[in-house]
């Protein structure tokens, strides 16, 4: 079932107001299989708000979501997850004090047995986590350690591994490199490329044009809740993108 002629998920002219204050106005974005769509913008530009709409956390106050070209209405994050739209939030949606394996499977725990004897498959989950993490180059001696004791880059990588493991088709990453140093950012950018090469549609949110440009196929620049432009990579250069972020006038003729 190839549907590569339509985006996996798209927002059409969506708006969102928080208690009267407009955080997003008439913004559109498309997420294509095997491509990376970057969302750029200053603090408070509405980036997180946009992806929370894609992820089913917020309902848009106006506009429409399309899943495989058909209108869709998510009534919660779970509904989005079920159709393969997975999100790694700025706060990573992780519980710092919980063990790595419990975090990895949170909300989708594996169980064995039936009825009252139904219980967590603890050894199975530990083994899967160990294997998934070693695949992306993280060797934990102890998957029982609280995830809060991992470094920021490691946590980010665990979150991405989790989304991919649970069959994400579209992967939304909210500022995955924001808190990271140069080396750890490179690692995360590597996973973004790998996810793209595996055919996932990726939404990559960042402040940093230097992170976005090398991996991105499309660029949505937000400014005070409005789209300042939506460009394919061929339409602009890294200096153009950087200038746009700095608020300088850009001539794209």
């Amino acid at each position, binding site marked *: 079932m190839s549907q590569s002629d339509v985006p996996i998920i798209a927002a059409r002219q969506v708006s969102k107001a928080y208690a009267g204050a407009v955080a997003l106005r008439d913004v559109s974005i498309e997420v294509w299989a095997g491509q990376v769509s970057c969302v750029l913008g200053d603090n408070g530009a509405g980036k997180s708000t946009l992806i929370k709409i894609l*992820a089913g*956390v917020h309902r848009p106050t106006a506009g429409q979501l399309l899943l495989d070209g058909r209108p869709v209405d998510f009534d*919660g*994050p*779970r509904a989005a*997850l079920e159709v393969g739209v997975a*999100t790694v*939030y700025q*706060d*990573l*949606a*992780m*519980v*710092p*004090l*919980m063990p790595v394996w*419990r975090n990895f*499977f*949170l*909300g*989708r*725990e594996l*169980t064995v047995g039936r009825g009252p004897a*139904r*219980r*967590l498959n*603890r050894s199975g989950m530990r083994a899967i986590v160990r294997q998934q993490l070693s695949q992306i*180059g*993280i*060797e*934990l*001696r*102890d998957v*029982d*350690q*609280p995830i*809060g*004791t*991992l*470094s920021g*880059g*490691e946590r980010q*990588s665990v979150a991405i591994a989790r989304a991919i493991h649970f069959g994400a088709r579209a992967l939304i990453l909210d500022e995955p490199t924001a808190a990271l140093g140069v080396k*750890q950012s490179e*690692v995360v950018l590597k996973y973004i490329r790998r996810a793209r090469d595996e055919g996932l549609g990726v939404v990559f949110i960042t402040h940093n044009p230097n992170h976005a440009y090398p991996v991105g196929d499309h660029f949505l620049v937000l400014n005070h809740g409005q789209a300042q432009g939506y460009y394919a990579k061929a339409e602009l250069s890294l200096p153009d993108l950087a200038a746009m972020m700095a608020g300088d006038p850009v001539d794209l003729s």
Partner: protein
Amino acid sequence: MAAHRPPPALAALIARPETGALIATGLVMAFFGLASQAFFTVAGAGVWLESASTYGIMAVAVALLMIGGEFDLSAGVMTGFTALTVGVLATHFGVDIRLAAGLALILALAVGALNGFLVIRTGLPSFIVTLATFFVLQGVDLAVTKLILGQVTVQGLSKVPNYDSIQPIFGSQLQLGQGHFYVSVLWWALCTVAAVWLLNHTRPGNWVYAVGGAPLAARQVGVPVRATKVVLFMGTALAGWLVGMISLFRTSTVQATTGVGQEFIYIICAVVGGCLLTGGFGSVVGASLGALIYGMTFQGITFAQWDTNWLMAFLGVMLLGAVFVNHWIRLRVAPT
């Protein structure tokens, strides 16, 4: 990328939050064993186990709730509320005592659910919401009991029909040599095992940790945060009912002030057992050990014929020590 490792002492406490309580249990046991001849006799053990049992049942439920990020200050007065309900219905209104116990259970669960709904609906701290429930129940206990019975004590309960059919479930005892062992100790063990199973071996248990540790994150990955919290409040109410029945059928009487002031002891037991006040972390076994420490100290001080007021001072010191250790864990694992 090299994985970060917590220092060994911290790692041990994280893996087993009840470690501190276990050490304290050993110390308290040794201390009172030396201070009093009676402590390590069969009769003595029966006394301090019985004393610990009702606190243990409550501490286990309170620990689950605290790991889930909430408090229940109405848990203490709930034990009196349920016992009074049964006492008044059976002695004054002639309701069959078994039915009365069932009605009290339903009432307790309803109050627990109400606590939960108020907390999730208003978003107010459960400390405040359940403080209100606490006062309401305390007032109702006193006023309604006085209004209906004309006094603040239920009497003549053991003469109502079918009393003997239900009494053994909650109040029977077994004599071993000089010692009396109450069935409440068995209930305590059962509750502890059930709670360990629930918390560490089931999906809802995983959610309890998550809703206490990071409710927003839990919601984002699809955990039913609100339902989990409501059920936890119903859990402390259920425990309150069980303890209410145990105290009612052990003594066949109940005072309108029963349970008032006990809620903080349950919280102390849970904290001594490794529960963080901020939620998301703790141990059911630890809370049970906390209750054991309380029972041993309470009775040990009596055995040693000291002023029982030392108990409160001791509790305060334990609490402070436990909070320091727990705070240290939290700062290391989840700074912010």
